[in-house]
């Protein structure tokens, strides 16, 4: 799947997402991580049907995802929900959060009357830990954590099967972030939701996900079981990303930071996109884009050097850390 945009001013094309193949299994949580501009939010919007792919297709439950117009799209919203990154922008400032959640239930035909919609809204708000009294407030009267909960209630009131959460905890204080993580964990367990979590925060993604996909400049460079990717990353970019996490220990070993900054989606390096910054880049990386290839431990990695390691050495040289 790809999603390209025309660059501002009409010059050139921005390859926000460039040939991503992935599947999300019913009931699982897939975390998508990467730095700003890697295309993770674009991927989330396309996965949830809010934007059409430029190339490729998205199939949901066996059928192609409908385009953005028409009854089929509206019907798909019942099952697929995208929870936006900025609660204050996504909530209607002129509606109390209770009314907003109730409206959602009405629009999707899940409440025959206003009373029933209000009852459903109150239940959804209670489900995300918001007191009934808070339902009477406007978004600007709520704290950041409360707004994030209200936004979740708005999507969950219609009982969707598949939810894409875009940066659900960014901009929240640490203690509030922990509350939202607890809430998402609880909702997943109770509702058998299939979830995609998009975040720049690897710790948040690891704690909530079954699998993690690491993106760099529009492509998935590594995807595998969450603990495997987090504790024993294979792709050099994933290795650098996880090594850059700051431990809560002043005596933690210092790793040299990754040099340079990612190129932009409008100016993608030829060959492997990561090669200008990669400590392991060799000649082939400059010429050919490495495919996402399976490793014996089940994950998939797009890297010439890792592929060469796997071919050369008896498996498993890389999973030494993963086994720990």
């Amino acid at each position, binding site marked *: 799947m790809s999603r390209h945009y025309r660059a501002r001013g009409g010059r050139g094309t921005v390859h926000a997402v460039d040939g991503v193949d992935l599947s999300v299994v019913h009931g699982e949580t897939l975390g998508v991580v990467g*730095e*700003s501009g890697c295309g993770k939010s674009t991927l989330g919007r396309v996965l949830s049907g809010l934007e059409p792919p430029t190339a490729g297709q998205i199939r949901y439950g066996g059928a192609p995802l409908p385009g953005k117009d028409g009854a089929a799209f509206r019907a798909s919203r019942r099952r697929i929900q995208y929870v936006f990154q900025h609660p204050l922008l996504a909530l209607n400032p002129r509606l109390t959060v209770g009314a907003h959640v109730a409206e959602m239930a009405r629009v999707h035909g899940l409440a025959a009357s206003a009373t029933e919609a209000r009852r459903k809204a109150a239940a959804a708000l209670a489900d995300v830990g918001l007191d009934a009294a808070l339902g009477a407030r406007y978004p600007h009267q709520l704290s950041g*954590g409360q707004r994030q909960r209200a936004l979740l209630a708005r999507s969950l009131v219609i009982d969707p099967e598949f939810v894409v959460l875009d940066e659900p905890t960014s901009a929240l*204080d*640490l*203690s*509030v*972030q*922990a*509350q939202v*993580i*607890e809430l*998402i*964990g609880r909702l997943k367990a109770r509702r058998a939701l299939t979830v995609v979590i998009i975040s*720049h*925060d*690897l*710790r*948040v993604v*690891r*704690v*909530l996900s079954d699998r993690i996909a690491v993106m760099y400049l529009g492509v998935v460079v590594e995807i595998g079981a969450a*603990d495997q990717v*987090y*504790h024993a990353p294979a792709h050099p970019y994933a290795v*650098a*990303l996880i090594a*850059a*996490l*700051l*431990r*809560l*220990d*002043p*005596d*933690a070993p210092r*790793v*040299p*930071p*990754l*040099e340079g*900054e990612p190129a932009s989606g409008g100016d993608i390096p030829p060959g492997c996109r990561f090669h200008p910054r990669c400590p392991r880049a060799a000649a082939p990386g400059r010429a050919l884009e490495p495919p996402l290839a399976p490793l014996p431990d089940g994950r998939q990695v797009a890297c010439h050097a890792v592929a060469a390691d796997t071919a050369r050495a008896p498996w498993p040289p890389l999973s030494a850390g993963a086994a720990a």
Partner: protein
Amino acid sequence: MSALAEGAAHTLPPLSVVAASPAPLLRVEGLTVAPRAAPAAPIVADVSLSVPAGGSLGIVGESGSGKSLTCLAVMGLLPRPLIQTGGTVRLGERTLTGLSARELVAERGRRVAIVFQDPVASLNPVRTVGRGLTGLLRLHRGLLGTPARDVAARLLEGVGLSRRHLPAYPHELSGGQSQRVMMAGALAGEPSLLIADEPTTALDVTTQLQLLDLIERLRAETGTALLIVSHDFGVIARSAEQVAVMYAGRVVETAPVRALLRRPAHPYTLGLLASVPPEHGRAHRAPLPPATTVARAGAPGCAFAPRCERAGEICRHARPPLARLREGFVACHHPVPA
């Protein structure tokens, strides 16, 4: 023995421990900040801190804890609606509190400089990097013309950029580059103290690591002391020797960084540390309950008591003083046992 009795017996002015070094460079004593409209309702109350020459202090806390306002008060940059209603700020031998705006300008930049969270908003969009830096060099060091340009280029090289960036406008720079330019500007006056207010919050993790490494290297080269504010314990662990934890406008715990991270004494510090998502296992119960009301510095009792599972009757009506405990100081009637 009750924790209160133990604490009270050893109550000392908190400075004596925070300032382990004999010659504190920055000394903040009893700093109190309140709205001009309500001077009796402080939002930063009785904050005492010190940074030794060449040393580093981290202030950690959540939004609204007063950590950024403390920095702004140190710089004499409080926004108009706020006023310092008590306490003193001293830098070396000089008392900054009470200086005129003109005198403060001379101190700022030359002796103490600040780097803010949002570099893009802090750089003048219609000035090139070179003009911004040469302007600072004229102001702080009286440099003009070619010498100023040469020093500006050297400053850029020092932060990992180059002479090529002199003609660039801020919008042509990435977030990481902008923060490096801010850092070059802060160092233009060769300050003895650098204040960094959430310097890496807007940056990606790999860029964040580059910038923290840069701060560390520059400090090793120039001996500049650091006051760093962050909500992220990882940043604090990486860059500060001493830590002060703020809650509702007050310092609730201060200790050497290793002691604070390994044996937090204040229940709030403990809860905050436990809120960092774990590296193993699944999502679990959030350690700190949501705040039901806005905690205020001026309220009687301990501001954290409503969220504290260790709180007792005394916590609701008597505010605990910052008292010596183990390697640090803690403001708590029932501190966490070691």
